[in-house]
C-alpha cells in the first residue's frame, strides 16, 4: 500500500472498493489532524459534532483551509462581479437562512403541508421499477447501474421536480461535474475543476431558470411550480435561492440514491442468504435498508464543516476556523457503538446509523430515498432469477464522498414477470 496520510490513503482511488480497514485505522485517533484537516471518525464524536451549534456548514467561516481542496469551498463573494453564480444552497448555509430555505422547500415536499406526497408516490415508484426491470434483457450481461439504479432515481426526481426526463442527457453532465466537486483531490491544482464546477453550476442554473419561468406562467403539480409560486408565512424564495435549491435537489436526487441501491444489490449478492430471505419476504426490505445505510452509506463523509470556536472533544482541541471532516461511514462501523459492526445484519435491533447524517442538516430526501431503496431491492430480489456478480469488487466511481460502483455487472438466469 502506498504510504501517505490516512486521509490521502482513503481518498486514493485504489482503496475505493474497501475503505473500511482504513476507517478502522482512523478510529484509533477519534480526532485526527492531518493535511490541515480535522478528521473525526468515531460514532459518539461524529454524532456530537453534528449537533454542536459551534459547527458551521457555511464554508465562508473557514479560515484554515485543508491542504486537500474541495472546489465548492469557493467563496461566492470572491466571484467576479456580474458573473451569474448561484448563491450557496441550504446544505452550505447555517440557521436561520438554512432553516428558512429548508422549511420553504419542505412546504411542497412533506408534512405538515404535504403530508401524503411521498407516501402516495409508492405506486408510481413501483411502476417505474417494474418498467425498468421489464426492459432488462435477462440473457446477457447486465449493468445494474446503467440499466436500473441510475435511471430509477433520476426518473423519480425528474417527475417530482417537474424536469423533463428527455433533457436527461443535458443535466447528467452538469450533475456529474457538480458531484465530482465533492471529491477531494489531494495535490491537484483545483483551478481547472473550479472553473468546470462554476460553469456547470451556471449552466444548470440557466437551464432551471428557463423551466421555472415556464412553470410560473403555467403551473403544474410539481415541486418547481409550487416552489416558484410559494407564498406562505415564511414568504417566498428569491429566484436565485430557488435556482440553488432546485439544483441541489436535482443533483442530490441523481447522485446518492443510485449508490444506495447499487451498494444494496452488491451487498445482497455478497450475502445470498439475505437475498433469499428478501425474495421470500419483501417486508424485510424495511429494516434491511436501514442496516444498509449503516453498513454502506451512500454519503461516506461530510467534508465541509468548520468550527466557529475552539472545540474540545475526545481529549483533542479542534481550533476555530478548522476544516472539519466527519466520516459517518467510519462512525457507522464503530465497535464501541455497534456490536460486530463489520457484519451486515438486517435483523440488528439497534441500528441508529448516521447514513443520513443527524441534526438540522440531516438528509432532506431521506424518506424518498428509503422508499426508493426498499421498493427497488425487494423487486430486484423477487424478479431476478439466480442473480450473480460478474465482477467483485466492481469498478467504482472516483468519488470518495459519494461512493459507489460505476458499473455493477451481473447476470441472471431469467427475469420473472
Amino acid at each position, binding site marked *: 500500500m502506498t504510504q501517505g496520510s490516512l486521509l490521502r490513503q482513503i481518498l486514493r482511488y485504489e482503496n475505493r472498493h474497501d475503505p473500511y480497514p482504513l476507517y478502522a485505522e482512523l478510529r484509533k485517533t477519534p480526532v485526527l489532524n492531518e493535511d490541515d484537516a480535522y478528521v473525526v471518525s468515531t460514532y459518539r464524536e461524529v454524532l456530537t459534532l453534528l449537533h454542536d451549534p459551534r459547527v458551521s456548514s457555511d464554508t465562508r467561516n473557514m479560515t484554515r483551509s485543508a491542504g486537500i481542496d474541495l472546489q465548492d469551498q469557493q467563496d461566492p463573494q470572491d466571484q467576479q462581479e456580474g458573473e451569474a453564480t448561484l448563491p450557496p444552497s441550504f446544505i452550505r448555509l447555517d440557521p436561520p437562512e438554512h432553516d428558512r430555505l429548508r*422549511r420553504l422547500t419542505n412546504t411542497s415536499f*412533506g*408534512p*405538515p403541508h404535504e403530508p401524503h406526497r411521498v407516501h402516495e408516490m409508492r405506486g408510481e415508484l413501483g411502476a417505474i421499477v417494474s418498467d425498468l426491470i421489464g426492459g432488462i434483457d435477462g440473457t446477457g450481461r447486465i449493468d445494474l447501474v446503467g440499466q436500473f439504479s441510475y435511471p430509477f432515481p433520476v426518473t423519480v426526481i425528474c417527475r417530482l421536480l417537474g424536469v423533463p426526463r428527455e433533457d436527461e442527457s443535458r443535466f447528467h453532465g452538469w450533475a456529474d461535474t457538480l458531484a465530482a466537486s465533492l471529491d477531494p483531490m489531494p495535490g491537484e491544482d483545483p483551478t481547472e475543476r473550479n472553473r468546470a464546477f462554476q460553469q456547470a453550476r451556471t449552466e444548470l442554473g440557466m437551464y432551471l431558470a428557463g423551466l421555472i419561468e415556464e412553470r410560473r406562467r403555467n403551473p403544474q403539480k410539481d415541486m418547481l411550480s409550487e416552489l416558484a409560486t410559494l407564498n406562505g408565512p415564511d414568504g417566498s424564495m428569491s429566484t436565485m435561492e430557488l435556482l440553488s435549491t432546485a439544483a441541489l435537489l436535482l443533483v442530490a436526487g441523481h447522485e446518492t440514491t443510485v449508490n444506495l441501491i447499487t451498494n444494496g444489490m452488491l451487498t445482497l449478492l455478497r450475502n445470498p442468504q439475505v437475498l433469499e430471505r428478501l425474495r421470500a419476504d419483501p*417486508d424485510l426490505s*424495511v*429494516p434491511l435498508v*436501514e442496516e444498509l445505510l449503516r453498513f454502506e452509506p451512500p454519503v461516506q463523509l461530510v467534508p465541509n464543516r468548520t468550527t466557529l470556536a475552539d472545540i474540545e472533544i475526545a481529549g483533542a482541541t479542534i481550533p476555530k476556523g478548522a476544516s472539519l471532516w466527519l466520516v459517518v461511514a467510519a462512525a457507522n462501523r464503530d465497535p464501541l457503538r455497534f456490536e460486530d459492526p463489520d457484519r451486515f445484519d438486517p435483523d440488528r435491533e439497534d441500528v*441508529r446509523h448516521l447514513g443520513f447524517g443527524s441534526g438540522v442538516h440531516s438528509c432532506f430526501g431521506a424518506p424518498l430515498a428509503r422508499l426508493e431503496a426498499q421498493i427497488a431491492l425487494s423487486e430486484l430480489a423477487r424478479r431476478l432469477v439466480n442473480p450473480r456478480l460478474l465482477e467483485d469488487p466492481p469498478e467504482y466511481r472516483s468519488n470518495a464522498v459519494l461512493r459507489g460502483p460505476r458499473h455493477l455487472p451481473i447476470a441472471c438466469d431469467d427475469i420473472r414477470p
Partner: protein
Amino acid sequence: MRVVVDLNRCQGYAQCAFLAPDVFEMHGEEALLYKPRPDEAFREEVARAVAACPVQAILVDRLDEAVTAGEASDAR
C-alpha cells in the same frame, strides 16, 4: 396495534409522518401527533416509520391484542 413515541427522544425528523401519514402527523414544524391505537391495516406503514425513526423513539407492541386483553380488561 398500540404505539407510543418517546417524545423526549423525538427531534422532529418527521420520517414517521412521511412514511405513515395515516398514523403520524406533524403539528407545526416540529411537534408530533400520532394515533396511539392505529388500525391493523396500517401495520406495514407503522413498521416503516419505526425502522426509519433516526432516534428510534417509536415503540409498537410486540404482543397480540388478545394477550394483553386477557391480562386486563379494557372495559369499565
